């Protein structure tokens, strides 16, 4: 069998919008078959994963809370991937943002620092530190690529492991809560160092609004500014970009700083919003899931808003499935992998006419 690809001369909007939906349907179908093979009910699994979380108020809020870091990271990644640069270390940049911002939360814990000028500056500074931490960590692979030609793919990924180990050391060492019965975790931040909740007694915190704003700004920058044009041109026609006089080294540093900064912001939003302290594991793999979100959203910030909700659904459904179907979290991860593959195939189908040629060799 041979697969023949013919470039499509004009792409239609319907195809562009339909492709991710078809991909999602395909992934759900494959997931259903796997669950059936494991001897569980696919119908029940579908209900647990994709229907039940949408039926209750608290789980809808949880959905938005889980989608929030995914949106922040994926919007940043869309800049990188549009420019054909491969930052796959967002997980590490997320951790660095959480650590650097969280460090201020720990320092200001006993209120002694707040006496004279009040505590209003703490939260904004924490968020800023989060952005700086993530951006600096992302600039390491970017600089190594620009200066020395080292593959940014491998260096950014290696730094994830380093960041995870670093966080582990901090919460068992210098950042450990002295009154915490030797548990590997920091003190719980004061309320002033926490993101405010949008309503009393609810789960929804201000980070969700932040993610929405970031996505809108990202969409504007990518579509309507010279910088956004530069990013897209560098990815689609690098030679043309060089002839136009765009500096690809500067661009590399810029998009890595943006994606790292946003991943760092996601980290501190998670730490100061959802968790409220530093623990050895502050992310259930958001940095990697965001890669899928970015592609499912077709590398457009608005598409990413929708895609993040879909992937957040798999996290919440996955937690429920552990209880109701005794399917562990590996099912969620495998499904996410299948989803990414389906999205990529659908993406090819929008750009090429795919012909299956049976009987032909090669």
């Amino acid at each position: 069998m041979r697969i023949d690809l013919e470039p499509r001369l004009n792409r239609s909007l319907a195809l562009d919008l339909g492709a991710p939906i078809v991909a999602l349907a395909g992934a759900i179908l494959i997931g259903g078959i796997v669950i059936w093979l494991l001897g569980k009910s696919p119908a029940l699994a579908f209900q647990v994963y994709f229907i039940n979380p949408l039926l209750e108020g608290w789980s809808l809020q949880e959905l938005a809370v889980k989608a929030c870091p995914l949106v922040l990271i994926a919007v940043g990644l869309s800049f990188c991937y549009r420019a054909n640069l491969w930052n796959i270390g967002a997980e590490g940049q997320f951790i660095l943002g959480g650590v650097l911002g969280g460090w201020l939360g720990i320092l200001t814990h006993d209120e002694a620092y707040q006496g004279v000028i009040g505590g209003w500056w703490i939260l904004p500074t924490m968020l800023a530190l989060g952005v700086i931490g993530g951006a600096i960590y992302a600039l390491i692979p970017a600089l190594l690529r620009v200066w020395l030609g080292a593959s940014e793919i491998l260096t950014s990924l290696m730094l994830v492991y380093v960041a995870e180990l670093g966080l582990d050391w901090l919460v068992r060492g210098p950042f450990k809560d002295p009154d915490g019965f030797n548990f590997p975790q920091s003190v719980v931040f004061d309320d002033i160092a926490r993101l405010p909740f949008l309503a009393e007694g609810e789960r929804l915190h201000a980070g969700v609004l932040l993610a929405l704003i970031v996505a809108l700004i990202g969409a504007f920058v990518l579509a309507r500014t010279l910088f956004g044009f530069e990013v897209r041109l560098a990815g689609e026609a690098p030679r043309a970009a060089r002839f136009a006089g765009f500096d690809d080294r500067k661009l590399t540093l810029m998009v890595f700083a943006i994606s790292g900064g946003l991943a760092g912001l996601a980290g501190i939003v998670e730490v100061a919003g959802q968790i409220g302290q530093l623990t050895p594991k502050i992310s259930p793999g958001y940095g990697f899931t965001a890669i899928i979100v970015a592609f499912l959203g077709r590398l457009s910030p608005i598409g990413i808003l929708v895609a993040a909700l879909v992937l957040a659904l798999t996290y919440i459904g996955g937690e429920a499935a552990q209880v109701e179907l005794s399917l562990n979290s590996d099912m969620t991860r495998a499904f996410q992998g299948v989803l990414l593959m389906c999205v990529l195939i659908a993406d090819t189908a929008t750009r090429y006419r795919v012909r299956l040629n049976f009987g032909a060799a090669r």
Partner: protein
Amino acid sequence: MTSEIFQLVLMTVVTAATPLILAAIGELVTERAGVLNLGVEGMMIMGAALAFAGAYLTGSTTLGAICGMLAGVAMAALFGLLTIGFAINQVAAGLALTIFGTGLSGLLGAGFVGLKRDRPGHVHIPGLSDLPYVGQLFFGEDIFVYIAFGLVAGAAWFLSRSRTGLALRATGDNHQSAHALGLPVRRTRFLAALFGGACAGLAGAYLTLAYTPFWSPGMTAGRGWIALALVVFASWKPWRVVLGALLFGGATMLQLHAQAASIGLPGQLLSAVPYLATIVALVLLSSGARKNATAPAALGQAFIAPR
């Protein structure tokens, strides 16, 4: 006596290097054909899970290793379908393969967590294996070590001395010219990817059958990624993979011994050594490599037949 200990330490270095050699030599051949498969980690962990399952159920290390290789081949075939069939971006497809493999291996291996097997015996050649100081090191390793070295020798010969190897390199350096010469670009790449998958699966099998003889989810711990870095480190030349892998094996063992001896450094810092070493190696070799551009010229580019 101390020299006997020295020999034992060297043997653990070889043991730590073997999975890296296996995975890296497969990826090297794949990349020489122009295919960048970032899914090594995913293929390796699938190989690890299924090799243990196969060996546990059949009671045979050989059948287990074959299961591991088949798992790697199946994953590589999926990758080939995506990138060679559908011309999907290889970086994205490789990531998808790793995410998928990590999840699926956890699902399939769930029933085997906590079980144990015996390590396969070591080779024993009467006379040679009993030589003082070097006998065990050179003639008394487990069989996988010799397979790994055999694969490196085979790949080195194949790439530089055989006609097919020349065609494979041509495919990786300029797929348009290779196509114009009538070489089957997509078939060559697909087969090269399958070879890479078999090697990565075998590397995973080594981990669960000989290195730690049990299965636990996520146990490859980034070795697939380190193998990818080793290919760059080796400038896409087979024998340099061995050198690189032994250096990494040495670094891994050094940090393990340092942790055991508790020399006062935090354990996490020592655990980070292999990852930091990878970055340093990439940086050192990339800056040197740029001068004489050793990477296959068409690496990572999808081939779409002109018509």
